[in-house]
């Protein structure tokens, strides 16, 4: 994790990218590029107009957000009718406390959990460990992050920044066998270790990819089947669900599941898709005896009230990270928060509440190329939201956001005073006489000329040509005063 200097001349994300080892950059770049290509192949192979699907999914999610209060009430009623207990957590601390109390009340000391960004957001595992509870991540990537004391660098593929040699070394260190970097061997070792943990666990903690307001059904998608194992042996299931995870009806899930898998990994459907109705019923022999659903707000209602509410449509597919040229150079860790890439550049500062200015540089980490909007399965206008947050950062005076951006006040006076503008265009030719080495006094000029040339300044040349042409020609074009 990196620190933002008080008045640096380049942005923190850029500094991070510069220091990133070439091997890591290559891992992130290649994996992101492959996933982007697989996504395009899958969507255009299977749908006549994938963009229509994205727009529809975006509208359904937006509708859900506009009526979130009603849908949450409906979901709570259905969940209770299904036999689940429903809890409401205003923030991360409250959510952790609720989970801690459930575990304590049931004398649980061992927990297995499946992948969930919401639990990363609230730092649930470190909280549980402090309470003396063993909490094991069972998604292979997350498990590796856990044993390395690292952080996920991607929403879907948390160890996109690691290679198999790194992982083999970690496994050797953890006593999971001698060094062996064969992916099949690594996977089998993890499987053997984790299966023991599933059987010993008192509770299984999951997130939720979706929850249907109509039926209270929780939907979990994985490729490793680990969330299924988390619910197979333990007597208690706790699901941490961001309040934005709702969809109105079960039938909406066909659209969202087909978009999620294709957008995330280029699969038609994830290997495992589970629909969980509630705890074990009287006539059932297996499954958790208790099911707890903890709805997590953690400033989501503040985001809902803001002019960036569309970001809450996000279904965490990671497609915007994969396609983003900045993410590909900076990796997820460059964004300093759990959510990285374009979605993280919007969401992380917003979820920071009053500490927004500290992360207000993240919305600047974009060339506004718009690729993120093009690939988003719920059609979030990410560049628009990044721009709104840049305005917010400027209005609130964030030094982190201001770093490296030339001040625009004087320029705006120049650009709205036509007479002065024309004089400046003429006078600007003097720039051609200044050696580039002199330009280095100005931080912005230095940042440009470090790696790029400037073309010759030709201020006023077009206007002069136009004037000369109009003098000699009887016909337009004419200059208008």
């Amino acid at each position: 994790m990196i620190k933002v200097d008080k008045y640096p001349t380049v942005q923190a994300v850029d500094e991070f990218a510069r220091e990133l080892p070439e091997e890591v950059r290559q891992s992130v770049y290649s994996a992101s590029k492959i996933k982007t290509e697989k996504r395009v192949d899958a969507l255009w192979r299977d749908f006549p107009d994938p963009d229509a699907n994205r727009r529809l999914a975006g509208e359904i999610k937006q509708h859900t957000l506009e009526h979130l209060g009603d849908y949450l009430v409906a979901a709570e009623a259905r969940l209770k009718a299904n036999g689940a207990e429903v809890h409401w957590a205003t923030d991360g601390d409250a959510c952790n406390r609720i989970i801690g109390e459930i575990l304590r009340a049931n004398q649980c000391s061992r927990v297995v959990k499946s992948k969930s960004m919401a639990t990363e957001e609230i730092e649930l595992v470190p909280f549980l460990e402090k309470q003396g509870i063993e909490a094991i991540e069972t998604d292979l990537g997350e498990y590796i992050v856990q044993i390395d004391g690292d952080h996920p660098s991607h929403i879907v593929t948390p160890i996109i920044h690691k290679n198999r040699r790194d992982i083999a070394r970690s496994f050797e260190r953890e006593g999971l066998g001698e060094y062996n970097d064969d992916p099949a061997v690594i996977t089998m070792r993890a499987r053997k270790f984790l299966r023991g943990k599933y059987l010993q666990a008192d509770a299984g903690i999951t997130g939720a990819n979706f929850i249907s307001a109509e039926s209270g059904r929780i939907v979990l998608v994985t490729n490793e089947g680990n969330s299924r194992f988390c619910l197979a042996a333990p007597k208690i299931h706790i699901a941490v669900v961001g309040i934005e995870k709702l969809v109105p009806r079960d039938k909406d899930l066909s659209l969202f599941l087909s978009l999620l898998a294709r957008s995330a990994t280029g699969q038609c459907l994830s290997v495992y898709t589970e629909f969980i109705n509630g705890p074990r019923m009287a006539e059932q022999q297996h499954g958790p005896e208790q099911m707890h659903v903890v709805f997590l707000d953690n400033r989501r209602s503040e985001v809902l009230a803001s002019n960036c509410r569309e970001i809450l449509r996000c279904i965490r597919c990671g497609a915007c990270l994969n396609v983003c040229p900045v993410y590909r150079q900076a990796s997820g860790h460059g964004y300093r928060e759990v959510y990285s890439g374009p979605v993280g550049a919007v969401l992380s500062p917003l979820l920071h509440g009053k500490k927004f200015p500290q992360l207000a540089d993240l919305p600047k980490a974009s060339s506004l190329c718009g690729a993120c909007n093009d690939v988003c399965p719920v059609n979030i206008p990410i560049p628009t939201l990044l721009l709104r947050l840049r305005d917010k950062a400027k209005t609130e005076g964030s030094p982190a956001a201001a770093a490296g951006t030339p001040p625009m006040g004087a320029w705006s006076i120049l650009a709205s005073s036509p007479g002065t503008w024309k004089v400046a265009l003429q006078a600007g030719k003097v720039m051609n006489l200044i050696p580039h080495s002199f330009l280095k006094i100005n931080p912005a000029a230095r940042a440009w000329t470090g790696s790029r040339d400037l073309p010759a300044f030709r201020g006023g040349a077009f206007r002069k040509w136009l004037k000369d042409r109009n003098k000699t020609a009887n016909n337009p074009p004419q200059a208008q005063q």
Partner: protein
Amino acid sequence: MGTCLCDAFFDDVARATVEVLDYLGCDVRFPEAQTCCGQPAFNGGDWKAARKVIRHTVKTFDGELPIVIPSGSCAHMVHHGFSLAMEGQDDADCVGPFSERTWELTDYIVNGLGVKEWQGKFPARIALHRSCHTRGSRTIDSAKILLSSIDGLELVEFGEQEQCCGFGGTFSVAFPNISTRMGQLKCSHLLADKPDMLAAVDMACMLHLGGILDREGHDVPRLHVAQILRDALKKGGLL
């Protein structure tokens, strides 16, 4: 609208734009008071400064005539940025009608004037950079329609066509390392199949790609689509 980058660096692009529109029979006017669309401040987050320039631009181009811009990003600024920056302002209404009569040059030629084939000749293999701010607009399709119809002109395919050149306005100086890497990657793709020249529909991309190519000593010519259209007419003896 001539754009600030044409005013400062790319005078021949503005000139080619006038010549092309003139050839098509348009009566081209150039309001002298014009400066910039306000995009640098808008993208840089200083919306107060941007609004000042937006208001000036709207006032300068007062009237009913279509406004044609040889730049995908300035057209995008007018179509999207103006209304965003003016949200909640008392005079926000002024940008709607302005935006409706604003066109990017190739979009105007193909969809405004209905010209779908270009006369003249231009024997060259050209790699056309798509310029990100044309996403969601008709510009890049229009540019391809015009260029591919020119006698002798071949558009070259290249990898990662959707990827950005790395300019992004103030992004290029606030994020010099990432921006440069993006530009270098773009250049390597554009040059992979050894095209005779590179083309774009936006001077900002040309400024960035050109800056990198010049620094690395590549002398491959870079032209704006307006210049290719004009030069095709000249080579065909039509201008």
